[in-house]
Structures are given as structure tokens and as C-alpha cells.
């Protein structure tokens, strides 16, 4: 049975859709809100802002996170900034332009209505955060400062030094704390959702594990909101935090929620290159560096050789012997092309043999020109903490020698399918932020993840969830002693027992690293039919190996990080295959999804708008069965999909 996908996009003019929709949906009275329970999974920008706003409205909220405090969710690591269409710089920005840039940046694989709404509420986010005491960067006149980001020709990015995600999250966390103090939200740190409970086709609660005691708990609610972030760690090495995982989203998929565009992965162009086999994660260097940094490789192969041998310093290479390849290929946007374009261009140069470190997998990001133009002090003010971090990690001073960078997995545009209300295909189950698929199409623009997380949590979900809950005002408290909860808890316990019973030889990390290698080589920056088919076969084999040979130590009823990791890896081993299947099915190149068979003569991504203007939504059919595909057609009523042009 194929999934029934009703996107619920409101009729009418683009700019009126959200207003019309808000006017049409139902609200819940204060007296009734008090009777309704909501569970939120994850305390990043989406989860924290949603829980705080829902608590303010009067709902009873429970919020769960795997970290020791809600403040540590991975949103905190976002560096560069948050977009909004304020037009404070008077550079002709507007809601429409932000919408257009985002839908174009996503290579026309997102819904117009969702993206327009995102742009529309973006301005409210800035106001909200300022009022919470977020110390955004300011000009001498006391007004908010902006900078430019990839994929835009206006300066619409608001920032707090290189720690914008941290400051926005502390704002949302403070709002959450206010509600925890008021008693409307109850916080469950060091708790992990291990299953979503579905009864009569509706979400009714979750099964969670207390990560300190190992206790398996039942929590019932009238609605469940998944705000658990993305699944980039399927690649093992990524810029995601070590514990970031796709498991909460994957349990929803397993219980029948559609999973959309799983192959849309963002490879971020400016990360510190891999240094060896002992590495645990990759460090991002903020995209904001591309405001002043210029990306290049040598023009001459002999210079490349000398660099690798260490007989030549990059600063010794003459201006005319440098290939500023982004400026050469994309004059209009230069170093500020979108991430997918910048990453592929770096790969192209390295594949051609111009990579600048021992591994041949690095390009330069150079501040020489900017330091000459602005002085070292200004550069230090703008990027000081990033430069320090770079030096700490690499032992190289970026004020004197260019940084070395290379693309790394950063963000997943794909995620749980949601309708315009952010509800999944399971009634009462919502997904917000990076966990859903809705706004970024095939490529996300920089400084738009923070925008989406907070848009969903502060300004969209608190309205749309009321439409569903208005039908639940007569419903009693959700009982957790029902067969559905019994079954879900039993399945979780059996899965844990099964893992301990294997007593194999390989550690969880041993297998995760191998999965990451398969993914990076075959489902990474460039994909082919052969590589994807190979990935599917290899992942299936590795999954069997995992279930026959993984070695767990410790016990289930105690603090046990290995168990946590094993449970997450079990899901990654299915998710990786799903990503490969989706990428294999999508016989076109778009955004971050690049099929080598489908490129223009100049090596740009070649979309196929005849056949692939849809979101690919997958339905789970069992661990070793092929999932079923349902297509949600994307109708472009207001913009005309064209080949993305960042040249002129």
C-alpha cells in the first residue's frame, strides 16, 4: 500500500498562503490546552524553541535530550549566522528574494509554499532573539550588523561572532528554562527515545531509555514532535557532534512515517582536511570565511609537487601562478557560490591532481588579500576564534600561511516527510528542523539551518499543531498500559538483549568506520550507478556482519555508551542503504546529489525536470526488504526552474 501524501499546501497567492492557512486552521482554548500533552524529542533550535513556545501556550510539554543538558544540542556548533529578509542593509533584499535564493539554492527540489513561509517568518526570528538577549554583532550606531553568505548577493546574515548557533541556542534554552521554571515543560536530559508508539494509526507516545540508569520508560502524549536533527554521522566522519544520530527519525520511518529524499546530503566545502586514521570527526571552518578568504590551488603541477614535499611554502607562490578557480569559473558569485558548487569544484581540482597536501585532498583558503586590504586587526576581529581553532588543530598560523580545507559531510536536507503543518504521514507525529525534509530541497544555503529550526519551533508548529490537537480536546490522558506500549517496550528490550547476546569480535566503532568508508566512497560527493549498487551490496553485507559479530561490553541496566552507539549504528546501517537506494533511483544531478552520469559539458549538475520534479518518499518494508517509493510532485507555480547560474 503506497503512502498517502497530502501536502496540504493552501491555495492562493504565494504571499497569502500562510496568512490564509493560519486563518483557516483551528485553535485550542486555554482551558483545553491544559489538558493536552506534547512530547518533544531533541533540544536544539527546533526542539527548544518549540517546547518553550508550546509551554507558553499552556500545553503540558515533556522534552527529551541525550546530552546532560538541553543547552548542548548540536545546533550550538553552528558558527556563521542566521538569514533574515530584514533589508537592514538597504541592498534590495526582501522576503521574495530570500525565498527565491533559497529555492534556487536548493536546486528547485523544495516546495514553494514552505520556502516562502520560511522567508516570511525569518524577520520575526531576529526580533525574537534580540528580545531574548542574544548578543548579535552590532554596528557603531548600535544597530544590527550583517554579513554575506554563499548563494546570496545581499548581506542578510545576522551573527554573533563565530558562535551564532551557540547564542541562538542559549536564547531558546533560556526560553525553555523559563517554561521549566513555570512548570509547563518538564525536561528529561540523558534520555534517548528508542521507539515511537503508534496506536490506531496515531502517535501516542514514546519508549525512552534513561541513559544513566538504563531504565526503559514509557511516556504518553497527544502529540509527539521529532526535533532530533540530521543523520550525517552515517558517514562516521562528519562535522556533526559525536552523538548526533538518525535513530529517532528512523524509528518513525520504521513505524510507517514516510522518509523523504534521504540521499540529499550536504558536503560542506570548508572543513579541515582528514589527517590520519585515528580521526574521530571533522571540524568545520565557517562559511563566513569565504567573505574574505579566497580559494585557490597552484596552476602548475611542479608547484603542487614542491608543496607536498615541503620545499615550497604556499605564500611563496606568485599571484600569476595561482588558480582562484571559483572566481575563474563563477565570476558573479566568486568565492560565495553555494556549498554544493564550491565542494564539487574543490573535488574537481583535487581529482585533476592539484590538491595541496600529502593526501592530495586539500585546497587553500587564503586571507592574504584581505589582510592587505583591511589589516590583520580587522580580520582578527571578524574571525579570530576560527583562526585560533585552526591553529590549535593544525599547528599552522593562518595569518601567515593559507588554511588548507576540504569538503566534509555537514548536513542532511533529506528527512522525515511532513506536510505544510509539519505533520508526518502518522497523525499526531510531527518533525521539525533538520529532522524533516521540507525547506532546503537538494542543497541548503549557509545560515539557513538556524533560520529553519527557529522558524519551525517558534512560529510554525505552535500554530499548526493546534489544528490537530483541537480534535483531541475530549481525549483523556494517554494511557501507557496498553498493548501498543507493551509491544513497543518489549521490542526495544529484545533488541537490546539481542545486541548483548551476539558477543562478537568487532567494536561498534570498527564497524561504523567501515560503514563510513563505504558511504564516502560510493554515496559521497560524486555518485554513479555502479558505486551506488556496490554500496547497497556492501552495506547489506556489513549489516549482517554487525548483527553477527558486534561486541558489546557492560550491561543494559547501567550507563553504557557502547550500547547507545550500537543502537544508533544499527539504524545507520539501514539508513545508509536507504540513502544509496534513493540516490540510485534519482537519475539526475541536483544540488548536493551529483550523479556523474548527469552533468553538463562544463561539469555542472544537470537536473532532469521532465522526470524528477518530485520529493521521493520511502515507506519501510522491513530490514531486508526494498522500501516502497511514493512521489510527491512539486508544482512550481510562481518560479520557473532553470539551470542554476552563478556565473553572471
Amino acid at each position, binding site marked *: 500500500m503506497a503512502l498517502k501524501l497530502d501536502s496540504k499546501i493552501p491555495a492562493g497567492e504565494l504571499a497569502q498562503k500562510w496568512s490564509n492557512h493560519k486563518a483557516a486552521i483551528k485553535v485550542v482554548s486555554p482551558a483545553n490546552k491544559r489538558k493536552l500533552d506534547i512530547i518533544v524529542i531533541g533540544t536544539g533550535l527546533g526542539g527548544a524553541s518549540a517546547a518553550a513556545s508550546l509551554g507558553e501556550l499552556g500545553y503540558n510539554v515533556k522534552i527529551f535530550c541525550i546530552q*546532560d543538558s538541553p543547552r548542548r544540542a548540536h545546533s550550538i556548533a553552528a558558527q556563521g549566522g542566521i538569514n533574515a529578509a530584514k533589508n537592514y542593509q538597504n541592498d534590495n533584499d526582501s522576503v521574495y528574494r530570500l525565498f527565491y535564493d533559497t529555492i534556487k539554492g536548493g536546486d528547485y527540489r523544495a516546495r514553494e509554499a514552505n520556502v516562502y513561509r520560511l522567508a516570511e517568518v525569518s524577520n520575526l526570528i531576529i*526580533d525574537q532573539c534580540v528580545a531574548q538577549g542574544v548578543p548579535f554583532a552590532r554596528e557603531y550606531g548600535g544597530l*544590527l550588523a550583517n554579513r554575506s553568505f554563499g548563494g546570496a548577493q545581499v548581506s542578510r546574515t545576522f551573527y*554573533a*561572532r563565530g558562535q551564532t548557533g551557540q547564542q541562538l541556542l542559549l536564547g531558546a*534554552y533560556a526560553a525553555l528554562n523559563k517554561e521549566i521554571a513555570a512548570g509547563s515543560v518538564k525536561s528529561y536530559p540523558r534520555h534517548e527515545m528508542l521507539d515511537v508508539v503508534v496506536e490506531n494509526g496515531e502517535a501516542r507516545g514514546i519508549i525512552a531509555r534513561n541513559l544513566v540508569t538504563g531504565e526503559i520508560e514509557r511516556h504518553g502524549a497527544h502529540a509527539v514532535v521529532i526535533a532530533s536533527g540530521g543523520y550525517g554521522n552515517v558517514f562516521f566522519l562528519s562535522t556533526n557532534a559525536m552523538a548526533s544520530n538518525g535513530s529517532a527519525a528512523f524509528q518513525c520511518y520504521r513505524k510507517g512515517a514516510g522518509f523523504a529524499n534521504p540521499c540529499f546530503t550536504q558536503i560542506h566545502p570548508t572543513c579541515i582536511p582528514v589527517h590520519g586514521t*585515528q580521526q574521530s570527526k571533522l571540524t568545520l571552518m565557517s562559511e563566513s570565511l569565504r567573505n574574505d578568504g579566497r580559494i585557490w590551488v597552484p596552476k602548475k603541477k611542479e608547484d603542487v609537487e614542491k608543496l607536498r614535499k615541503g620545499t615550497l611554502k604556499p605564500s611563496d607562490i606568485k599571484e600569476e601562478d595561482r588558480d582562484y578557480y571559483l572566481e575563474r569559473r563563477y565570476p558573479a558569485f566568486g568565492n560565495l557560490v553555494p556549498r554544493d558548487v564550491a565542494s564539487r569544484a574543490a573535488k574537481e581540482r583535487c581529482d585533476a591532481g592539484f590538491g595541496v597536501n600529502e593526501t592530495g585532498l586539500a585546497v587553500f583558503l587564503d586571507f592574504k588579500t584581505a589582510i592587505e586590504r583591511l589589516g590583520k586587526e580587522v580580520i582578527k576581529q571578524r574571525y579570530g576564534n576560527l583562526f585560533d581553532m585552526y591553529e590549535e*588543530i593544525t599547528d599552522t598560523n593562518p595569518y601567515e600561511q593559507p588554511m588548507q580545507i576540504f569538503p566534509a559531510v555537514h548536513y542532511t536536507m533529506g528527512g522525515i516527510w511532513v506536510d505544510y503543518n509539519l505533520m508526518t504521514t502518522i497523525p499526531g507525529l510531527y518533525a521539525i528542523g533538520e529532522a524533516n525534509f521540507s525547506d532546503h530541497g537538494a542543497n541548503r544555503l549557509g545560515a539557513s539551518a538556524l533560520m529553519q529550526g527557529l522558524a519551525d519551533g517558534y512560529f510554525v508548529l505552535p500554530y499548526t499543531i493546534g489544528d490537530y490537537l483541537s480534535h483531541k480536546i475530549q481525549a483523556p490522558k494517554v494511557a501507557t498500559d496498553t498493548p501498543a506500549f507493551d509491544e513497543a517496550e518489549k521490542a526495544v528490550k529484545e533488541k537490546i538483549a539481542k545486541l548483548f547476546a551476539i558477543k562478537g569480535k568487532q567494536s561498534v566503532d*570498527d564497524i561504523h568506520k567501515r560503514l563510513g568508508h563505504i558511504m564516502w566512497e560510493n554515496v559521497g560527493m560524486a555518485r554513479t550507478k555502479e558505486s551506488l549498487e556496490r554500496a547497497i551490496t556492501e552495506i547489506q553485507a556489513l549489516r549482517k556482519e554487525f548483527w553477527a559479530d558486534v561486541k558489546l561490553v557492560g550491561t543494559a541496566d547501567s*550507563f553504557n555508551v557502547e550500547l547507545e552507539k550500537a543502537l544508533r549504528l544499527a539504524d545507520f546501517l539501514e539508513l545508509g542503504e536507504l540513502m544509496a537506494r534513493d540516490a540510485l533511483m534519482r537519475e539526475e544531478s541536483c544540488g548536493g546529489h551529483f550523479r556523474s552520469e548527469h552533468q553538463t559539458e562544463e561539469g555542472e549538475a544537470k537536473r532532469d525536470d521532465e522526470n524528477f520534479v518530485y520529493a521521493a518518499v520511502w515507506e519501510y518494508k522491513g530490514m531486508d526488504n526494498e522500501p516502497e517509493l511514493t512521489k510527491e510532485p512539486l508544482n512550481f507555480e510562481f518560479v520557473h526552474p532553470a539551470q542554476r547560474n552563478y556565473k553572471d
Partner: protein
Amino acid sequence: MNFTLKIWRQKDAKSHGAFETYKVSDISPDTSFLEMMDILNNNLIHEGKEPVAFDHDCREGICGMCSLHINGHAHGPEQAVTTCQIYMRKFRDGQTIVIEPWRSAAFPVIKDLVVDRGAYDKILQAGGFVSVRTNSVPDGNAIPIPKKDADESMDAAACVGCGACAATCKNGSAMLFVAARVSSLAKLPQGRVEGARRAKAMVAKMDELGFGNCTNTGACQAECPKSISIAHIARLNREFLSAKFED
């Protein structure tokens, strides 16, 4: 590089802990401290032993999760970095490294090197926020804020809540943590409205949770991975005193 590690092992909050000695070898100088711990743990797992539990997450120095006391210093021998930002090239080949959890009465050990820092959340819940509702706010540029004030607010807001200050303080005081939040909001017009109530409530909660008093030794500032200045403690004291006068 090769190292000898003396690591605090403790089964759970109720058990007694003790140091155990481990060896790690063939560590690249470019390996981070926590990657070295990963290598140790992977070895332990292969030997069928329980790996060392330690908190970590972003490994970019921003989430505040990592919290190791290394050779007598919170976040190790280097200044102004979190544990995850330390690289093994900073140690001598063959060196013995002593690794402990935060030692603070208000942060009980959960297991090995993992402690419960829930007390910091509770302090912030007592008043570390501006009481504004979603959507009930003026335009972001309605109130200009001098750049200097915004910058100072940001200096204080850089706190990652890791707990190094309280773990370092001989009195177990959380003053630097409390001061960072109070000071960050005190420098902004949005935070001024509730300034007096905030300072009193957060200090009272800190006392209630068993943190000690501040005697201005400055140890917290020296060990803070974000170099939060004790000047913020002075501002907290000012806020607190003026709030008391208002009573």
C-alpha cells in the same frame, strides 16, 4: 607517541572509585586528546573490558560537554581551550597523564569521568532568562545597543557551561558561571528589566545547591576554557548589592 594514563574509574555514584593505569602506544602527535581516549577505549573493548566513560560531543570546543581534569588542571595544561581541543603534540612522548572527573560536591560522579552538572541548569532556571513570550517583541532594531555593550555581553555569553570554574575553585563556587549569565544580560537593555530579581534568584539558587562562596582567588578565570573574566563577578556583585538596596 606512547603514554601512561592514570584514570579515575568509578562504577556509579554509589561506589568508591580508584585510579587505574593504562598504556597507549603509536599515538600520532596530531591526534586529539579525546581521540587518544577513543583509541584506549577501543583497545579495552577488544580486551573485553569496560571502556572509560567520559562526556564529549561536538569536539569543536563549543558544546561544553567534555570535562576532564588532566594533570591537575580542568581541561588540561593549556589555557583557554576545552578538553576536546587539546592535541597530543602538547604532551611529551612517554609522559604519564593523570585523568580525573570534575571534583565538586555539586557535581556528583555518574560513572568514571562523567559527572552530573544538572545544578547548572537549575541555576539558570531560577532566572537566567528574559521573560518574553514568543512573538510578543519589538523590531530587532527598535532599541539601539552600543557596540561596546553588545561586545561585552557577548564576551560573557561565550560561557559553555562546562563546570570547569566550580570544579577548579577551592571553595567549589559557581560564581563565574552565574556571573557570566547575569553580566551578559545586564549589559543589554532587554535584560535590565528583570536585573535585580535575576541576580538575587540565581545567587540564592547557587547557595541552595551547595556551591561554595567566592573568595576572589581568580582560579576560575585561569582555567575557564573561554577566558571568561572575573570582571563579570564584580558586575554580578554590583547587581546583587543594588538589588538588595532596592529591597
